[in-house]
């Protein structure tokens, strides 16, 4: 076993305070971050692009604003990374692939990248991912396999594996990922960081390479609840450039973070959510959430079918999205992804439409559950990080395909577009476990309050110790 920890990294909030007060030059932060990435990424394989010139120029601008006495923004000088499906002005967007060699430099930043920059954050790197976000392992035949910083013999998870790894290693205090079936929460769970999949439409997807239009979300990963809340508050908001963007205004999460859990009705998710999680994982989850005093268990009928329906929608939409390139450049795809995309393109429309109809049915079931529950609690992944190269995982004497099964606990919530947060807790041996919180639409602030309560009780793996 070997771990990779560059830090301790300076948190989002502390960096912004020190830079904003003129006590810490943003340029120094940027240089140190770039140096740390260069020193450690050879082992991790988490970074695909380093934006040295842009990072130093952005940091100099922040220092200039501070020097003039202007407000440099709530994320002044905070370095961050993005999964390499976010557009970065002047650079081609890889999306984990080499299928589109003629794709020119992006004409503009993705909306989320622009918002972060407008608030003073400094983009330093783009991170590795499964090709076109298709997968849960970040084993990419073009850009390599991202290693788990907690133990480099193990996978980081995916598809936002590079983003989870750079945060867990302390290279940057936060990163952005995307989540279609669990691709923020799964790597967050396996690497031991916080990962938030916001409500569908709450955070703009404009300027990202989409995988599945009906299910894609983007969101942040960070090492503390405070950092996650600070970043979420900048990201959230309507965007006319994103056709699925909502106009509902979420309440800022950071000011509410210390409000505690009094008055909130919490329940463990039963049935499917207990059946597909390993016993050791459930033991770790139960121990971690003990301070919350959750005694109620609720069954959510149809959750297994929701995973099945989500897989059908995912495959059919992804297959259609890639159909023209599958006709002309099929051999340029990752060999692990190509057959799945082709199969998706062949899914009969009747199967796809039935899956979309089931989505409405399952939403009605879950809405009834949320009539007298505020937050559902469950594990994020069925197991801890599998070893690199493993293809099956053992859960309750059953062998499950890692590629198909790491998302069994996360899929239903992206399927419904509900906010879901993975919290890192002590797991089995040296590998962490994720506790997943799920709430009603636009209740990210509530989920972060619950997470903060667990963090304050010492139940989480926060920071970079």
């Amino acid at each position, binding site marked *: 076993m070997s771990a990779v920890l560059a830090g301790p990294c300076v948190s989002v909030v502390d960096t912004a305070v020190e830079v904003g007060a003129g006590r810490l030059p943003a340029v120094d932060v940027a240089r140190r971050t770039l140096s740390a990435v260069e020193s450690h990424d050879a082992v991790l394989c988490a970074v695909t692009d380093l934006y040295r010139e842009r990072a130093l120029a952005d940091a100099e601008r922040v220092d200039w604003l501070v020097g003039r006495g202007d407000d440099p923004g709530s994320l002044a000088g905070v370095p961050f990374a993005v999964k390499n499906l976010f557009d970065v002005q002047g650079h081609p967007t890889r999306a984990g692939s080499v299928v589109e060699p003629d794709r020119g430099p992006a004409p503009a930043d993705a909306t989320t990248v622009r918002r972060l920059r407008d608030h003073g954050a400094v983009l330093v790197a783009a991170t590795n991912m499964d090709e076109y976000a298709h997968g849960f392992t970040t084993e990419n035949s073009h850009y390599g396999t991202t290693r788990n910083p907690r133990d480099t013999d193990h996978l980081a998870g995916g598809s936002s594996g590079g983003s989870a790894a750079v945060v867990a290693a302390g290279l940057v205090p936060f990163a952005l990922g995307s989540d279609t079936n669990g691709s923020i929460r799964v790597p967050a769970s396996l690497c031991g960081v916080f990962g938030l999949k916001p409500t569908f439409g709450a955070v703009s997807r404009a300027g990202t390479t989409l995988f599945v239009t009906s299910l894609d979300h983007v969101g942040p990963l960070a090492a503390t609840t405070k950092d996650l809340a600070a970043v979420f508050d900048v990201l959230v908001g309507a965007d006319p450039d994103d056709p699925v963007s909502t106009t509902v205004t979420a309440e800022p999460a950071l000011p509410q973070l210390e409000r505690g859990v009094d008055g909130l009705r919490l329940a463990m998710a039963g049935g499917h959510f207990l059946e597909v999680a390993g016993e050791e994982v459930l033991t770790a989850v139960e121990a971690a959430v003990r301070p919350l005093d959750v005694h109620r268990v609720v069954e959510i009928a149809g959750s297994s*079918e929701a995973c099945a329906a989500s897989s059908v929608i995912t495959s059919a939409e992804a297959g259609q999205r890639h159909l023209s390139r599958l006709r002309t450049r099929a051999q340029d795809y990752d060999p692990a992804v190509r*057959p799945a995309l082709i199969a998706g393109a062949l*899914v009969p429309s009747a199967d796809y439409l039935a899956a979309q109809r089931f*989505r409405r049915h399952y939403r009605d079931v879950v809405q009834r559950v949320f009539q007298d529950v505020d937050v559902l609690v469950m594990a994020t992944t069925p197991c801890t990080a599998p070893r690199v190269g493993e293809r099956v995982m053992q859960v309750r004497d059953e062998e499950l395909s890692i590629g198909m099964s790491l998302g069994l606990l996360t899929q239903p919530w992206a399927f419904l577009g509900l906010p879901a947060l993975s919290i890192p807790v002590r797991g089995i041996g040296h590998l962490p476990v994720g506790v997943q919180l799920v709430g009603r639409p636009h209740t990210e602030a509530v989920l972060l309050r619950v997470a903060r309560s667990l963090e304050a009780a010492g139940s989480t793996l926060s920071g970079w110790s």
Partner: protein
Amino acid sequence: MCAQTLAGSGEELEELVRHASAVLGLAITEGDRPAVVAHLGCLRAFAARVGDPAEEPAMVFHP
């Protein structure tokens, strides 16, 4: 589940892959064909589990 489905309907799946890929203009290599058939078998098994609910579809879904 997927394996059981494949065992019962392998020829049907092979035929679906042959027919649909021809209609869509997709050339599938012999190396990829078994994996494509296996993936499609899983997806059809998933669809069978979902059934055919009566609700109207929610194509673009705001919660």
